[in-house]
């Protein structure tokens, strides 16, 4: 079979392992923290509203915060124990967020399970979407978009293909890879549930060819499952970007400014599908995830942790830092935000943490553009980053917009490849935020 790929893109660390060799053979290990601090903005959209107070004793899987607004999701206690604080705390975002801290009694006292709705193959399709919402499932690949919203589509639209994103093209991270190895059957079952909920006959599991074990495991799990197939992709960053993934697997392109559903595709992460299976068949909400702790730590590992586990505790569990650490990245090297301290908590969408030493963290000095055109050739969207950057530097919003800055997916390829080490991606992200803000403010007038 021809391995498919897309236009542009880069190989950040190496063509084959991309920094993943540190943890790819580490099976997910269960880690029980003493405390969990669960932020209320685990998902995209308005933060949930806490419904417990300090001193309350909560059971594992109990709802501790109620959904707010259209994109809202409930939040469940990821451990059992006493609520020791409901207070604002600094996480990775610009503002402090409300967080619920629970002291883990390690008894795993369980809340009454949710009402059974059958298996992934028998459950009523309408109940599946409802269950996905009740279980607090959002995309676990990074964007944390509530899955039930993605699955609730207008009448005139339809989906004919569900793609499970197992590309994991970011550097260092292996949490999806481990999930595919260890929960292959759950992933396929979850995919079937989503397919049935959407009345959709094609299910594709897309995996990069630097994960042959995962491809094999998923192929085996998909055997005999109606409509489910595994597609092997040629390793290249940003393969796991929704738009690129859709194009390589279906040959379709998401129309500009539209969503995947406008080309009849729904994409979600492999770990999300496994969570769907647990929610539908085992009546369990999403309260744990696999996270990669890697880079300059003594023992790089994949940990199965309750949502809200402190990164500091996880790094301690991995034997602490290996030498002096200068930068901590929440996610992969290409898109992950840098954390000012390790005092932040695992969310539903955080696939890993990478610790970097001073040499790796060295900030590069921006030189003048030499017009080499490398940014143009690697841009997977087909933009001219060099030109857009001129408009960004000149603070010209109109010019940047006319050169399609809003189409930028902030993948980081241009910055990565720039020999003058210009901060292209950062400028574009900033400009996009400003344009969005300006249009919102304009709308209010």
């Amino acid at each position, binding site marked *: 079979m021809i391995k498919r790929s897309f236009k542009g893109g880069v190989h950040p660390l190496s063509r084959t392992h991309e920094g993943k060799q540190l943890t790819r053979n580490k099976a997910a290990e269960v880690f029980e923290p003493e405390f969990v601090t669960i932020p209320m903005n685990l998902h995209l959209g308005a933060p949930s509203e806490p419904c417990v107070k300090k001193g309350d004793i909560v059971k594992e899987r109990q709802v501790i915060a109620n959904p707010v607004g259209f994109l809202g999701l409930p939040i469940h206690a990821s451990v059992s124990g006493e609520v020791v604080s409901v207070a604002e705390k600094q996480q990775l975002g610009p503002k402090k967020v409300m967080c619920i801290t629970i002291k883990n009694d390690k008894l795993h006292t369980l809340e009454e399970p949710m009402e059974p709705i059958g298996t992934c193959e028998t459950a009523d399709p309408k109940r599946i979407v409802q269950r996905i919402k009740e279980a607090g499932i959002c995309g676990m690949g990074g964007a944390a978009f509530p899955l039930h919203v993605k699955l609730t589509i207008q009448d005139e639209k339809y989906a004919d293909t569900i793609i499970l994103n197992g590309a994991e093209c970011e550097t260092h991270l292996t949490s999806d890879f481990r999930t595919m190895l260890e929960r292959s059957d759950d992933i396929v079952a979850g995919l079937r549930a989503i397919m049935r909920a959407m009345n959709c006959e094609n299910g594709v599991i897309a995996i990069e060819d630097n994960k042959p074990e995962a491809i094999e495991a998923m192929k085996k799990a998909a055997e005999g499952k109606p409509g489910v197939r595994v597609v092997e992709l040629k390793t290249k960053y940003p393969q796991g970007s929704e738009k690129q993934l859709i194009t390589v697997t279906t040959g379709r392109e998401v129309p500009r400014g539209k969503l995947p559903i406008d080309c009849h595709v729904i994409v979600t992460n492999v770990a999300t599908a496994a969570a769907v299976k647990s929610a539908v068949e085992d009546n369990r909400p999403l309260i744990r995830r696999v996270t990669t702790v890697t880079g300059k730590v003594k023992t790089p590992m994949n940990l199965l942790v309750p949502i809200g586990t402190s990164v500091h505790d996880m790094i301690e569990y991995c034997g602490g830092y290996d030498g002096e650490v200068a930068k901590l990245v929440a996610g992969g*090297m290409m*898109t992950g935000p840098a954390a000012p301290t390790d005092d932040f908590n695992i969310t539903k969408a955080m696939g890993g943490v990478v610790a970097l030493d001073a040499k790796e963290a060295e900030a590069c000095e921006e030189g003048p553009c030499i017009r080499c*055109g490398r940014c143009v050739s690697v841009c997977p969207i087909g933009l001219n980053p060099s030109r857009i950057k001129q408009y960004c530097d000149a603070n010209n919003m109109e010019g940047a917009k006319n050169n399609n800055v809003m189409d930028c997916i*902030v993948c980081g390829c241009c910055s990565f*490849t720039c*020999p003058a080490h210009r901060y292209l991606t950062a400028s574009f992200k900033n400009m996009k935020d400003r344009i969005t803000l300006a249009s919102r403010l304009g709308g209010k007038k």
Partner: protein
Amino acid sequence: MTAYSVTTAPHIRTKESTTSIMRNVLIALTPCLIAGVCFFGFLSLFVVAVCVVSCVFFEWLFEVIMKRPITIKDLSAAVTGMLLGLTMPVTAPWWMCIIGSAVAILLAKQLFGGIGDNFLNPALTARAVLLASWPGRMSGAAFVSPNFLGKVDSVSAATPLAPGAMGEGGYSILDLFLGRIPGTIGEVCKIAILLGFVYLLVTRVISWGIPVIIVLTTGVFGWIFNGGGITTPIVSVLSGGILFGAVFMATDYSTCPMTALGQIIFAFGIGLLTAVIRRFAGYPEGVTYAILFMNIVTPLLDKYIKPTIYGEQKEKKEVAKVA
């Protein structure tokens, strides 16, 4: 708790830098320089050295006077000097080298904003100015025959592009290829140029598109304009500065288009113009002016040719269907 450095993603950058690219260009030019020394003697080393030193000096001087950050470490001025030196005849006097360097760095590069902002290739601009100012010292009589690998040296010789230079008693295709012909220091030895080309390809400094299209276009139109003949395309490609210009001058980042289609048009234009100038203009060598002309067209090509944006094509198709 320790505070870590917070910078924006991506947290990993390519190992390449402007300096490493320029260093690679210098390395790629070295075979041409060595060939030049072999064919024309150590005087050619002197010519190139004067150009390099004065280019770097002028860049430094300008930046000191203008109180700008000193950028001579990025080696781009050295590359300009080397390119200029290699496109000079070995008989060029030292003061011409210095004037050429001043034109390249001060006029063509720094006055327009320095690296990346110049719209004309600095070395070629300097060469054009020198060519117009001292035609006798830059071409024709200024070219001595190489005194290496056979040919007996004479004081001066016509370039193979001058009418009647080829054929009986003239130069063979092998002469053209090895470089046993009169010409500028760097352009004569095609083997050295090809070595440099391969090096630039391997180190991914340039891609093959621009040089190959220029050479093919020149060959094809040279053949058409000169009324056919089996050897004409080969001769027109191997003579004069077309190969050197195609590999080292036309691929200059600042002055060639950034998009693939733009680069194809750019290269085609250079090839066509070279053939036209060679055949129909009163001047035997057209590469310099062809490249400079297409340099001027580059901003237009970059303005009007935009890469297809993801999702755009499909959008158009769907609109067409509705209509």
